[in-house]
């Protein structure tokens, strides 16, 4: 085995050596020993506003059941994971069995009641605030983009976005982001073949290299063409990746597979961005039926993340991987007349990876609708934030990425009590 280099190992895939989901420990250790020292961050956007109370269920809070007669997850079905610092018993949604396993391995942290003061109920403003890490000026550059800027000149694959549009969180002047919604179609095609096609490709690269100084909008698009041209071959190598597990066939699963591929091929990417949507459950949220809307959301999330976790672990990359989720807001505590929930305030964030100190962080709200209840706001309608989401970002920037959160976030948001990484 000593002659197997990391690259050859990766090229053939650990799958070549193992057929089971979990690689033998020695293979994982070997891969780890042979390289893989690039820490990366995977930002997961649960878009639409994830209902934290269906995700992490306070199954002994009687107000949870009285305020959600149609939507509450029955106490008997939740996946119990213990109690938080306030003694509140908590359980994961029943479809999150894979996440519970990861929690039990100490590699999943749940940060309750993350948010900010006067939480916006607009999807767009909310997303901007979480992306810019700024509740006041939400149109500023993205927090991840600003972090990347501090690293100096970067190649376009430093940030790998698996969605179509560049997400706000990754945006900053001078930071190129490769958007790769589909690895297979990320290729240069030509009406010609052979040498003629190669001449066209060379011409396209040359054309894009002439940056028109007096027309910045043209320069922007040229830069995108250029970035595409210089990343083609490396992205194709990620496309050739053979995962050690079977990912779900949905968009979320395929995006995570591409992320694992890019990590395993050592392409130098520092930040990945993955999104899964549908969390805007105003009506027919249905948290219990097999085909219920929220049940499907949890299944997608659980199956995708479980596959990803297993794959990067098998590849020996778990220790380099941190996944952090956010959503633009949580949802209202009381269900609405459409058996759904409207836009709310604070919610739960999750962090997963080999460097994560797992557990439940922060305290759950009491759902008592008394307007004086200090853990709620808006006359008891919403969960009030306890942990400023920027403190979570600060922890990731300082303790995981080795950056300076005060510089990146424009102020110190360091906080104690959330030592999840």
């Amino acid at each position, binding site marked *: 085995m000593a002659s197997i280099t990391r690259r050859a190992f990766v090229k053939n895939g650990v799958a070549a050596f193992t057929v089971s989901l979990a690689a033998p420990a020695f293979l994982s250790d070997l891969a780890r020993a042979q390289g893989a020292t690039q820490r990366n961050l995977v930002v997961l956007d649960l*878009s639409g506003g994830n209902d934290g109370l269906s995700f992490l269920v306070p199954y002994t809070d009687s107000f949870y059941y009285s305020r959600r007669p149609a939507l509450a997850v029955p106490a008997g079905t939740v996946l119990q994971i213990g109690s938080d610092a306030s003694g509140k018993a908590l359980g994961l949604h029943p479809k999150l069995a894979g996440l519970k396993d990861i929690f039990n391995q100490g590699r999943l942290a749940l940060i309750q009641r993350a948010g900010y003061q006067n939480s916006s*109920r*607009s*999807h*767009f*403003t909310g997303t901007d605030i979480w992306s810019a890490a700024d509740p006041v000026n939400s149109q500023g550059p993205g927090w991840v983009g600003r972090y990347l800027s501090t690293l100096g000149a970067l190649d*376009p694959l430093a940030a790998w*976005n698996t969605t*179509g*549009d*560049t997400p706000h969180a990754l945006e900053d002047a001078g930071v190129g*982001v*490769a*958007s*790769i*919604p*589909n690895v297979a*179609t*990320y*290729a*240069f*095609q*030509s*009406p*010609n073949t052979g*040498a*003629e096609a190669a*001449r*066209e490709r*060379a*011409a*396209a690269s*040359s*054309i*894009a290299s*002439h940056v*028109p100084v007096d*027309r*910045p*909008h*043209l*320069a*922007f*698009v*040229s830069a*995108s*063409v250029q*970035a*595409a041209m210089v*990343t083609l071959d490396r992205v194709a190598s990620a496309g050739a990746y053979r995962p050690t597990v079977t990912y779900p066939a949905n968009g979320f699963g395929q995006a995570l597979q591409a992320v694992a591929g890019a990590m395993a091929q050592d392409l130098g990417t520092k930040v990945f961005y993955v999104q899964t949507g549908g969390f805007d459950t*105003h*009506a*027919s949220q249905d948290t219990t039926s097999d085909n219920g809307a929220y049940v499907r959301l949890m299944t997608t999330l659980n199956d995708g993340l479980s596959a990803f976790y297993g794959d990067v672990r098998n590849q020996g990359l778990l220790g380099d991987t941190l996944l952090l989720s956010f959503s633009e807001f949580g949802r209202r505590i009381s269900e*609405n*007349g*459409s058996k*759904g929930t*409207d*836009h709310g305030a604070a919610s739960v964030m999750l962090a997963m990876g080999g460097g994560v100190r797992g557990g439940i962080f922060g305290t759950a709200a009491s759902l008592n609708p008394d307007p004086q209840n200090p853990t709620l706001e808006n006359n008891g309608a919403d969960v009030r934030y306890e942990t400023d989401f920027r403190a979570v970002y600060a922890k990731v920037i300082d303790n995981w990425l080795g950056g300076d959160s005060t510089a990146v976030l424009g102020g110190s948001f360091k906080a104690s009590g959330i030592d999840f990484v």
Partner: protein
Amino acid sequence: MPAAGDELIAHLLRRAGLGAGAADLAAFGGLSYGEAVDRLVNYEGLPDDVDAQIGKPGYLGTTSRGPFSPDTVADDGRQRWLFRMVHSERPLQERMTLFWHNYFATGLSKVSTGIKAENGTRLMVAKASEDPAKQRGQIEMLRDNALGSVRDLLVAVAQDPAMLRWLDGDTNTKAKPQENFGRELMELFSRGVGFYTEDDVYAAARVFTGWNLKVTGGAQSPDASFAFAYNANQHESTAKTFSFPIYPNGSRTIPARAASAGMQDGLDLITALASHQETARRLAGKLYAFFVSETMPPDAAFIDELAAVYLKNGTVMKPVLAYLFNSPQFQDPSVFFTRYAWPAEFVVRALKETGWTGFSAGTALTPLVNMGQQLLEPPNVAGWALGQSWFSTGAMLARMNFASALASNQKFNLASAAAPWKGSPQMVVDYVLSRLTPADVSGDIYADLVAYAGAGVTWTGSTAQLQAKAPGLAHLVLGSAEYQFV
């Protein structure tokens, strides 16, 4: 070189139209600028039979599994719309339909949830004549109202069955008012963020209680029909007070009325919102970015002028657009090619200018998804992220690869069209640039194109050389940054 007047009309056709194909050049050739604006804006007298040409030779093709069924199969509906964009004699109507589709962005996948897929598609794209209950789909409704009164359009949107499903109006009841539509009505469809309060959202939700959907024929039946129905029993009839005026006398309160008359609440609110200064200015800003420029910020006075024309004309769009196209701001050459082409616009213009004989609209569907604009599936109710957001690396590659597919398909047509210019590689480059009309290319890029045209060959202008180089050049030009602007 075309005369300045021709350049201006070309600009007008890129903006108010969808590019200039041979039919557009014939229709607009010889018109003065004023006449061209008039033809675009006052389109009612022009034929609207474009759909009847689908499947006929000489037009863009379509591809379907089974019989072409644009009212019940989403991809067929998308193809019909692309066909209209390429061939309609009323390009501004299609352009504005696309504008409103983004403005009232409604996603088919949610509209279809829980009902038969064909019914969801009908709710989005069927013509009234195609629907069992003669209910027109949302896109048809937008097309009918493309240049009409925004107040009437907002009422039609609030009562549109697809919208009622999309923003959950169909579940807005007295006991539990549903906020989704009321919020977006103010945030995205009228006044804008910062110009309403959370209390306004609660009030608006109550205003629209009972604005529900009547389903006949059984929701799971393939010919179920869905129609707006005001349900007085579900209307919350107490007074609703807003932070802004509802009535001309300045009153902010919609009075309590009998539930049987409660539908008037919603009409009062919409009438007020449509004619608010905030709405007028917000819409004017959107029109400026859509038609004039995304790279040069608007002059505040110009936005005020557009807003004033809108309000003076009782929220009717046609005079606003006529004013806009006739304005010096629109005609200023410095705004030419300063608008980032949406994927659908890029595809349609490329088809018009490159040619379509033997090409199917179906071939454009997957590329449009990869470019980030699947028609009928905007990412959320705020619509697509516009401008530079279209140009991620992956989306740009999708544009380049569509250009490749089109150039490859049109290989023989391009080669024979270029034959009169076969004298030198440079002449072929000049021909392709004059046909495709990108923004001015720099000398460096021009040199690259000429170098490519002559690369690897001893130039003879042979058919084989033209069949390689003409599509190769078309691919490079259509895939260049210069072509991504209108």
